[in-house]
């Protein structure tokens, strides 16, 4: 953990109301502008970690900070949407407005931007994801890849310094996946990507965190850990084809 750290967790734990432990004593630090992947089997706690980091799930103060803000502190939580952007697993959960432009403007307007400022941010964000002409389209009628990029635009319009991406390549065809990888690579800021797509991890993230049953099982260079057959096998994963000997 250094003074450059953008995202820090310190003995982070989370237990659901039914007693299930979703996160158990997780500590790591991510430097500003670093791109890190979180991999692990289903139910490892990846989505719970994201929900804790963005303040949707309540927790104890002092267990996590993002750009100096603690998601468990109510005063900090109000400022959090300007600092951290979350792209959820299913874009249909995120695209809730009647048009793409209204959806992308949702965050900036909530943050107090004027309609003119919000429109400028919509244009900028849609351009960043290659959907400059899609503002008046209806989210329901977008393709899977377009929905994913529109959801990403909605988060980018808030200009967060930290991006949390939950299964960004899920349900995408190869072309949509390639386009998304290009878009994510070009994005500035700190990125934390939870995914089962290990090839995407190899393409984008020099560092990987392996999460299993709520515990941090490994944290280090992607190529080293993803090539470790025993580690991958132990945690319900497989060595990606590119790294197989």
């Amino acid at each position: 953990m250094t003074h450059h750290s953008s995202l820090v967790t310190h003995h982070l734990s989370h237990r659901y109301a039914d007693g299930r432990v979703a996160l158990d004593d997780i500590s790591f630090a991510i430097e500003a502008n670093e791109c890190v992947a979180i991999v692990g089997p289903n139910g490892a706690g990846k989505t719970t970690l994201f929900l804790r980091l963005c303040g949707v799930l309540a927790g104890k103060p002092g267990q996590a900070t993002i750009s100096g803000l603690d998601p468990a502190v109510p005063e900090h939580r109000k400022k959090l949407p300007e600092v951290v952007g979350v792209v959820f697993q299913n874009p249909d959960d995120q695209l809730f407005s009647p048009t793409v432009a209204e959806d992308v403007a949702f965050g900036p307007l909530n943050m107090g931007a004027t309609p003119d400022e919000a429109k400028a941010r919509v244009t900028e964000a849609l351009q960043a994801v290659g959907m400059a002409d899609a503002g008046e389209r209806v989210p329901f009628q977008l393709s899977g890849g377009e929905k994913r990029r529109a959801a990403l635009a909605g988060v980018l319009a808030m200009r967060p310094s930290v991006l949390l991406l939950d299964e960004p390549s899920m349900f995408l065809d190869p072309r949509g996946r390639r386009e998304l990888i290009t878009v994510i690579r070009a994005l500035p800021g700190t990125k934390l990507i939870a995914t089962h797509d290990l090839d995407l991890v190899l393409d984008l993230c020099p560092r990987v965190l392996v999460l299993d049953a709520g515990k941090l099982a490994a944290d280090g260079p992607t190529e080293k850990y993803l090539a470790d057959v025993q580690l991958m096998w132990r945690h319900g994963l497989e060595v990606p084809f590119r790294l197989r000997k």
Partner: protein
Amino acid sequence: MTLAFRHRSVPNSPLARWDARWKLAGAMLAVGGVAALDHLAPAAVALALGLSLLVLSRLPGAWVRSRLFLFALASLPFLLVLPFTLEGDGWDIGPVKISERGLIAGGAVFCRGLAIGCFALLLVGTAPLHHTLAAAHKLKVPGLLVQLTLLAYRYAFLLADEMRRLRVAMRTRGFQLRATRHGYRALGHATGAILVRGAERADHVAAAMRCRGFDGTFHTLARFRTRATDIISFAALVAATAALVLWDRLGLS
């Protein structure tokens, strides 16, 4: 069952260009006025007014007809029942007596129902729904109500899609809807699955909204600008409605 939810483009017309706030206020007053009409003649004129506005709106004929048919269907029972149930002078056809008063009252209800349908289609068809709802917010409709309506509209598409997928999944496993115990059970399970998925989705959407700073306040990009023609159109519609109500109340029909 086929649920065809599709976003439709709005045809260019004087009614589409009418500021949504003035249009909404005018149409709501017109609906209130028409609902208060008792006599057949003013109700028939109100229907003629509604139909004329629909023609002016240049909405696709098939779209208008299919929806007006539903309004007609809802109003039809009054036209069919009242002539046989209200007392008064009339005509005897065999053992059946048709009351003139009932026929006129039924006709008035039928015309009123269709006229209200015309104004409703006008609102829905001549501006995107989110624009009309943003206008409603400007007219002091609570933001939370507007937001909830928008979410319901947005997720109706998704729900329809999920129902379609569920129906296909059931049919691929040989399910055919029959009035049997098994049929009702399967239908109950499918409905339950849709409700559970809906509740889960509501949680996810709420999380996504909170992550983007939602605090219950409704915001929109929609902007409105009042021109002289907007006010004149509003005044004309309100004056026409007031004239119909006066005609109805003064008993000139």
